[in-house]
């Protein structure tokens, strides 16, 4: 038998430090056993009793912008999960500590409450916050760039992407948004947690910024438009958002004027992510993933003159 090199050495050293941080944190428990909540894409998240310790991706937007975003979370504890202390450095990683919250279960997501929280975030007076500007959806271009050069689905996705405005593709300066607000920047159902008192909060402030609030509705809008998210669920989210005065919810006729490009962009991004994931697993696309690729076809088909 051949001896394999011990690959677990470096991660377990980081693990041990995260566990020690969690046990010593306010609200932590010195005897708590760690549970890994997330360990992918260079991000490690451990739960240690009542706190969560997150080792951020090496090289991800750290330093002053993250500190400013965490300060914003601390200033808006009724909307965003407030951090337990400022960010710190462990080895070459930025590490943040948060209270533990129960994630959304897949059976009955809190659509209305999710919409209300977003609306209240968008209505926040952000003049006293120093968060950066949220410029553009950087993940779409990144996902499309990772697509294989061959394949029919890949071609459909690339064509839809090529028709997006140049600034969305990262090939022109981002125009200032018409009515900028504080936005989450990467909103989805995984960004909601329930606190012990039953109230929901948004987590993950790494994309928090000043931008066009329509982008926070882009992912569910894309999934609704692709036929994956049922109209009832989309309506519940919009109803919650509108009931709290959400500024991106304009009258019916105008709603899609604001949502169209954000929803197209996320449909393309999600389609690209699905295709990459299916190809790397060597499996065919399932029906839902096909629906996203079909949405990309329709995006290209319904385009008139090229947008700028």
């Amino acid at each position, binding site marked *: 038998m051949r001896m394999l090199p011990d690959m677990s050495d470096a991660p377990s050293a980081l693990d041990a430090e995260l566990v020690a941080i969690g046990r010593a944190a306010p609200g932590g428990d010195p005897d708590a056993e760690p549970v890994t909540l997330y360990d992918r894409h260079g991000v490690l998240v451990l739960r240690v009793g009542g706190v969560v310790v997150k080792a951020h991706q090496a090289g991800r937007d750290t330093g002053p912008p993250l500190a400013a975003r965490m300060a914003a979370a601390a200033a808006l504890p009724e909307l965003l999960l407030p951090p337990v202390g400022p960010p710190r450095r462990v080895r070459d990683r930025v590490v943040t500590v948060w209270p533990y919250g129960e994630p959304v279960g897949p059976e009955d997501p809190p659509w209305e409450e999710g919409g209300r929280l977003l609306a209240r975030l968008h209505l926040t007076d952000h003049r006293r916050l120093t968060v950066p500007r949220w410029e553009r959806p950087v993940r779409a271009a990144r996902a499309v760039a990772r697509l294989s050069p061959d394949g029919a689905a890949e071609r459909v996705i690339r064509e839809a992407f090529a028709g997006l405005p140049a600034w969305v593709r990262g090939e022109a300066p981002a125009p200032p948004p018409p009515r900028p607000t504080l936005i989450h920047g990467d909103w989805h159902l995984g960004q909601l947690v329930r606190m012990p008192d039953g109230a929901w909060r948004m987590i993950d402030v790494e994309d928090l910024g000043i931008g066009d609030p329509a982008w926070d509705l882009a992912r569910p809008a894309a999934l609704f438009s692709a036929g994956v998210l049922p109209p009832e669920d989309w309506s519940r989210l919009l109803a919650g958002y509108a009931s709290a005065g959400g500024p991106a919810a304009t009258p019916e006729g105008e709603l899609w004027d604001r949502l169209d490009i954000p929803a197209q962009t996320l449909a393309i991004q999600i389609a690209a992510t699905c295709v990459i994931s299916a190809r790397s697993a060597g499996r065919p696309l399932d029906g*839902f993933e096909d*629906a996203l690729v079909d949405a990309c076809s329709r995006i290209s088909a319904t385009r008139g003159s090229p947008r700028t």
Partner: protein
Amino acid sequence: MQCPKCRGAMRTYDRNGVHIEQCEMCRGIFLDYGELEALTRMQQQYMQAAPPPPPAAPAAPAWGAAPQVHHHHHGTPYYRHRSVFHMLFST
């Protein structure tokens, strides 16, 4: 029976238990005592039994899919499908 208006012959029709006399000449209708109330009652029952109008479908973009194509795949709530869960719950 003769029509009280034009003296034409009246024919009796039975509509859901209500007897209606109609003139074959002028098409006028004669209702016996209580028959108007019976018809009104039946109309109200019909209106109440009518299903409520479906909620208006939310607006969609020009490239939107025909709704409900992919729901309840094989009877499983759609959120539980691995791919959909990923689309809704992760970046």
